[in-house]
């Protein structure tokens, strides 16, 4: 094991478990009688309980234990699974997350409310599920008999500590049963061969005793009998849990069909202790091996270099050059491997939205189906985390504003089930994430009316379709007639736009009345390093992201002079507008006699950039621009060159938009 903090490791593991539980629960919501899913949920809860107790998350272990006990009755078929039950367990799952992330204080009330709702749901689900035993605290005390599984000590259980804990309850008499201790030659010293009988006197609840064994309970032999009955304490129970009546559940449940807390009910607890998810990345071992190989090679080259430095070799220059080339190759491969390490599939992002859709479906009363595609597409971990919030906004909008109610859909001749489709794909250096709904589409007239009433545009101002659609990204803009719990407050879309922009991405939006809307987020694969083309304009050096570069062509002096005023070149029978960066940047220098045009593209739009010189390719570590330069949109960032100087990185989408703008203007001018 590494020196990682075990608590942190547990948190990571628990988060995974909760995700699995949630996944299974959401599936269960669709297929209520699927035994496998019921088992999957139960297994998840059970594991969580166990490891929670092991790492000292007692509140979590106890809470989960109650949920598990309740859910066990579903597993045993005593109670059928219902939507209500699934909803409560989902909210219980949220509470568990809060317990894991927080210190567990001040959350008892929320937990109790959920347990209460859970009990109500269980009772509502199956009237047959009458409690089989009602365990009163036995005044006189209990007679216990327990035997740990042989491997218990190897798993970290200390029987002495269990006994000590039991002793703390009150007067206690312990008798060791040594009948199963084998003869010395057969004795395995690391196994636990001893069983114990105890008489525990005092007013103790059965639940308290069980809590002592909470972690080992499932594999051990345990019988707990009230002292009065004095039953022979020999009957071994293989799954003690089966006999455990939900003591605490009854204690808090006045069996009223209490309102099931909406999943949001625990949201404040979540908000108070935001989950820190950005702290670790799971890396497939083979990728680490690759990285190790590279590091190994680097070490070899390094030793060659030091040999060279300490001795005189004939043909020094040649050797040095070969080493330099090798280091260059290694550095680039290391970089690539390193980048790949940071990549995670979007599946984990998409799976979060299943829950969102489930909740939205309940809140809006619309039946919504989520389809996903391309979950294997990989994105930089940081990028993915920062995508989550904007996507929540977009999905909420799609469900709330986009999708119609079932009646409206039927009236419009559509299936009553609304569809939201998430897809991801990779194209060049970008990841495209598409959020599509088959709802009513964006009402241009209402957007326009709203924009006019807010003074964002002049009445009658001519706007292109995409300009109108982009109005929805304006701060404070909302076309929803009513403000709902979900959306319509007019915050959100501008935040979406800004977040995507900070990721150096772009948003495309298309919408067909009656058929739905599509929002496409185009995000660069990674934030940290890109391949760039280093160019010189005047005295300044600039980097053009190589992924956007289509080709480089020469702009001869004659062509340059001839093209004055119209700034177009013909490229494979298409007119491509070009921008003279020297003029744009106002360098005040004379053009180089051999200017080049670098043709860049986003999607199908192309634009040429006239530069003085192409210096070469450059591995570009992207640094962000200062806040003081945020009004300068031509640059996406800056980088540090080998000589310590700074080169600015051109913002491709901005420049393409500028080029398009110029083209439109020229077309309009005829």
């Amino acid at each position, binding site marked *: 094991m590494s020196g990682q903090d075990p608590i942190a490791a547990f948190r990571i593991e628990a988060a995974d478990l909760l995700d699995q539980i949630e996944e299974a629960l959401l599936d269960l919501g669709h297929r209520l009688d699927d035994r496998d899913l019921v088992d999957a949920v139960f297994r998840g809860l059970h594991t969580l309980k166990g490891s929670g107790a092991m790492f000292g998350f007692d509140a979590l272990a106890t809470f989960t234990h109650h949920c598990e006990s309740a859910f066990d009755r579903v597993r045993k078929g005593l109670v059928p699974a219902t939507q209500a039950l699934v909803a409560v367990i989902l909210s219980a799952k949220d509470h568990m997350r809060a317990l894991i992330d927080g210190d567990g204080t001040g959350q008892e009330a929320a937990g109790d409310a959920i347990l209460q709702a859970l009990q109500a749901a269980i009772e509502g689900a199956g009237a047959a599920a009458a409690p089989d035993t009602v365990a009163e605290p036995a005044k006189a005390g209990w007679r216990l008999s327990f035997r740990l599984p042989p491997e218990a000590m190897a798993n970290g259980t200390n029987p002495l500590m269990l006994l000590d804990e039991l002793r703390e309850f009150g007067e206690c008499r312990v008798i060791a049963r040594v009948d199963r201790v084998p003869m010395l030659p057969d004795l395995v010293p690391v196994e636990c061969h001893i069983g114990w009988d105890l008489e525990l006197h005092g007013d103790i609840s059965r639940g308290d005793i069980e809590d002592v064994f909470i972690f080992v309970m499932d594999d051990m032999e345990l019988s707990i009998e009230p002292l009065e009955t004095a039953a022979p304490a020999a009957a071994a129970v293989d799954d003690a849990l089966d006999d455990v009546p939900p003591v605490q559940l009854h204690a808090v449940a006045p069996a009223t069909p209490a309102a099931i807390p909406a999943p949001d009910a625990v949201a404040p607890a979540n908000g108070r202790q935001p989950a820190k998810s950005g702290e670790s990345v799971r890396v497939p071992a083979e990728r680490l091996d690759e990285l190790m190989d590279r590091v190994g090679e680097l070490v070899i080259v390094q030793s060659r270099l030091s040999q060279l430095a300490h001795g005189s070799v004939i043909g020094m220059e040649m050797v040095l050059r070969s080493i330099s080339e090798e280091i260059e190759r290694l550095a680039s491969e290391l970089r690539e491997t390193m980048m790949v390490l940071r990549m995670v599939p979007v599946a984990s992002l998409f799976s979060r939205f299943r829950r969102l859709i489930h909740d939205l479906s309940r809140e809006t009363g619309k039946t919504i189906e989520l389809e996903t595609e391309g979950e294997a597409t990989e994105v930089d971990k940081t990028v993915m985390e920062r995508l989550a919030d904007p996507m929540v906004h977009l999905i909420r909008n799609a469900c709330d504003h986009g999708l119609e109610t079932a009646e409206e859909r039927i009236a419009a001749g559509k299936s009553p089930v609304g569809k939201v489709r998430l897809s991801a794909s990779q194209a060049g250096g970008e990841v495209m994430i598409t959020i599509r709904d088959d709802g009513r589409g964006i009402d241009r007239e209402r957007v326009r009316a709203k924009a006019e009433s807010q003074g*964002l545009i002049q009445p009658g101002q001519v706007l292109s379709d995409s*300009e109108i659609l*982009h*109005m929805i*990204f*304006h*701060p*404070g803009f909302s076309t929803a007639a009513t403000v709902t719990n979900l959306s319509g407050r007019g915050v959100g879309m*501008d935040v979406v*736009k*800004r977040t995507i*922009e900070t990721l150096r991405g772009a948003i495309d939006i298309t919408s067909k009345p009656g058929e739905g809307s599509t929002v496409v987020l185009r995000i660069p694969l990674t934030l940290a390093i890109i391949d760039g083309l280093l160019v010189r304009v005047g005295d*300044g*050096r600039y980097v053009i992201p190589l992924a956007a570069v289509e080709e480089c062509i020469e702009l001869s002096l004659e062509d340059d002079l001839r093209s004055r005023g119209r700034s177009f070149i013909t490229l494979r029978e298409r007119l491509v507008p070009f921008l003279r960066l020297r003029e*744009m*940047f*106002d*360098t005040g220098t004379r053009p180089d006699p051999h200017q080049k045009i670098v043709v860049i593209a986003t999607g199908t739009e192309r634009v040429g950039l006239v530069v003085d010189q192409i210096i070469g390719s450059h591995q570009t570590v992207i*640094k*962000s*621009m*200062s*806040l*003081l*330069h*945020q*009004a*300068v*949109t*031509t*640059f996406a*960032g*800056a980088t*540090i060159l080998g000589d*310590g*100087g*700074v*080169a*600015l990185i051109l913002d491709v989408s901005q420049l393409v938009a500028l080029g398009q703008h110029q083209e439109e203007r020229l077309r309009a001018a005829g």
Partner: protein
Amino acid sequence: MEKSMIHWDATGGLEVLTFDLGSETFALEAVLVREILDLLPETAVPGALALVGSVVNFRGKIIPIADLRLAFGMPAAEATVDSRIVVIEMDAHGEPIQLGIRTDKVHEVATLREADAEAPPAVGMRWRRDYVRELVRREEGVIVLPDLTAIFNPLTGGDDAAGRASVH
């Protein structure tokens, strides 16, 4: 805009770094100052305001270089052997930003007295009054405490400005 507060200490003192711009002496709170550098090769940022017209590589970070002369209506001047960059860290909408301030000469860390300070006069100043927090009299002359927040905040843009910029 409300003026940025000056946090005089309990005894009415304020530790500052004093420096020259043209014929004037300015002072900035010493706690803001991160480093004093010789001039670095600067990279012009086309399209940026002349006030923050270039960037430098400061220990692997890209920071803007500000020429306060422009905020105070002084003519631009050639660098001299005494020219230095004072790297400061200031707060913009809750986020710390670093920037370098080009100075003609850096003097010393000194303690100013609150008793010697007075608000800029309502008339008779060559400069924008909101760019100056206080004027402090000293034997050698008057020291100007500029209001960096007032000077630079319009560039960082509040939410409002950012919103306007995002609509085309």
